[in-house]
């Protein structure tokens, strides 16, 4: 069983804490979904977001601080160090953005920052693509978890490159993987878990739903279904119909 740096989660769902209509709605989304991990950004608050961070801490879940909005390894490393100090966790979701519009990760800066942070004792969750060469470099750097994207952040497109994600999953059987970014519907989350991914992380799909708490619950149910399906051994696809009851000898015309 793959875990997240020694932590197993009761539900494979991680929720972001941005873009909700209010902190009260965010709290309701966590309560109603029982999501056990919250990501929180340190970037935009200029070190003065204490009241909001306290609310996030008050959720009583595992905190996964992130380096959202960082465009260089150096920025990301500094933000990670601030996050560790403030939230008292070695977990860090490492984002090094390479492109301001697509929010695509910068693979070079990502590896550089991952090496530095792993060496410094962080437990790094890198936001990456489905690229296997990059994945190998991140694992070499010391990452025991990978967070490949489903689709660009906030796009809600679901799993854009099924083949790429499936090969990535197969290539690193011992590495825990979280599908991060791009999920729009609970069915996307179920699909990711059915494929053997270990969790999903999402924010916009819940925060911008008309009823975020109910949508968070819908994702929680989908995560349970997907994880249960993966554990139950999916039958796989066949090219021909296989009737469950033989038709020979039956009056089937």
């Amino acid at each position, binding site marked *: 069983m793959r875990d997240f740096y020694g932590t197993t989660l009761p539900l494979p769902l991680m929720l972001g804490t941005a873009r909700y*209509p209010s*902190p009260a709605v965010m709290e309701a989304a966590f309560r109603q979904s029982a999501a056990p991990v919250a990501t929180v950004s340190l970037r935009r*608050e*200029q070190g*003065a*977001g204490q009241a909001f961070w306290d609310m996030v801490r008050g959720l009583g879940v595992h905190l996964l601080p992130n380096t959202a909005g960082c465009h260089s390894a150096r920025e990301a490393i500094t933000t990670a160090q601030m996050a560790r100090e403030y939230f008292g966790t070695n977990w860090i979701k490492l984002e090094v953005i390479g492109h301001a519009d697509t929010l695509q990760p910068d693979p070079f800066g990502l590896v550089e920052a991952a090496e530095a942070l792993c060496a410094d004792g962080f437990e790094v969750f890198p936001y990456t693509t489905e690229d296997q060469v990059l994945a190998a470099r991140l694992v070499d750097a010391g990452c025991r978890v990978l967070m490949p994207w489903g689709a660009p952040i906030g796009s809600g497109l679901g799993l854009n490159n099924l083949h790429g994600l499936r090969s990535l999953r197969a290539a690193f059987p011992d590495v825990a993987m979280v599908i991060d970014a791009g999920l729009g519907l609970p069915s996307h989350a179920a699909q990711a878990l059915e494929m053997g991914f270990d969790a999903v992380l999402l924010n916009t799909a819940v925060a911008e739903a*008309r009823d975020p708490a109910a949508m968070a619950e819908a994702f929680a149910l989908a995560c349970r279904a997907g994880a249960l399906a993966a554990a139950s051994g999916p039958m796989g696809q066949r090219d021909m119909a296989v009737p469950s009851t033989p038709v020979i000898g039956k009056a089937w015309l």
Partner: protein
Amino acid sequence: MSDVTIIGAGVAGLWAARACLAQGLRTRLVDRKGTPGPHGCSWWAGGMLAPFCEGALSEPAVVTHGRRAAALWGEVTEVTHRGTLVLAPERDRAELQRFAARTEGHSDCDAEAIAECEPDLAGRHRRGLFFAEEAHLNPRQALQDLTQALVAAGVTVETTALAPSEAAGPVIDCRGMAASDALPGLRAVRGEMILLRAPEITLTRPIRLLHPRHPLYVVPRGNGIYMLGATQIESASRAQMTARSALELLSAAYALDPRFAEAEIIEMGADLRPAFADNLPGIVQRGATLHLNGLFRHGFLMAPALAEQAAAFLATATTGDLFRED
């Protein structure tokens, strides 16, 4: 001798004074900095009276009470009734559909309707929503007019640092973030705004430009002056506007109308909005003190209704729907 002491002369305190006078209460209004100015967050407001647009992300009470705000403000200051135009860049058309699904009181606009509404935007935007019932005002003028109306009714703002415990009799505490020691659930949400002079551009009503990451509104202040707003950041920092926020607001304005590139930047401002966890303004009763706080981004929209309910409580001991548990 007064029946009630109001502490804080921002938009909440001024309205509280007006509502108390209307209830026949002898009213004292104090503020440690005096009459409204850059020291208070009302000064930095947008001045949109847009209950329907705000309804996209707010509790229903903001819509129901906010709908009365334009008429109430019209008693003391000039209110422009020209509605709100909501637009989205062509790539972000889905934002417009989403906004339409979450709001009431709008009609669809095509390119022709937009051109008719705001001729300066003709040919630039093809789809939009028009909220005909909404209005706007100039917040600084409105604060001054409201202050003058109080003076005419015999209440002047006393420049005094008075703690709620030092006042004799009931208190309405309208100090915003300064009351956070008494209201642990109150938090600061930073907002930043820019004032531009763009005499080439003629827009006659607030325009909202939807964007998944950098939404913008532009409010005309007359004489070619436009207010761009506003960021919404979970932070208690009162530092000057960041370069990032300035870039975001200015590029969104440029997307709305490229002629904003030639505008003169006449002011940049940043301040803190007080907010409760649900971002809904409210009244908290603590013994003889009523806290009227958490106005968040709804100060001009919600202050009149909050003030009415607070004054009604003092005069007749009735509580309204904006009273909340702390």
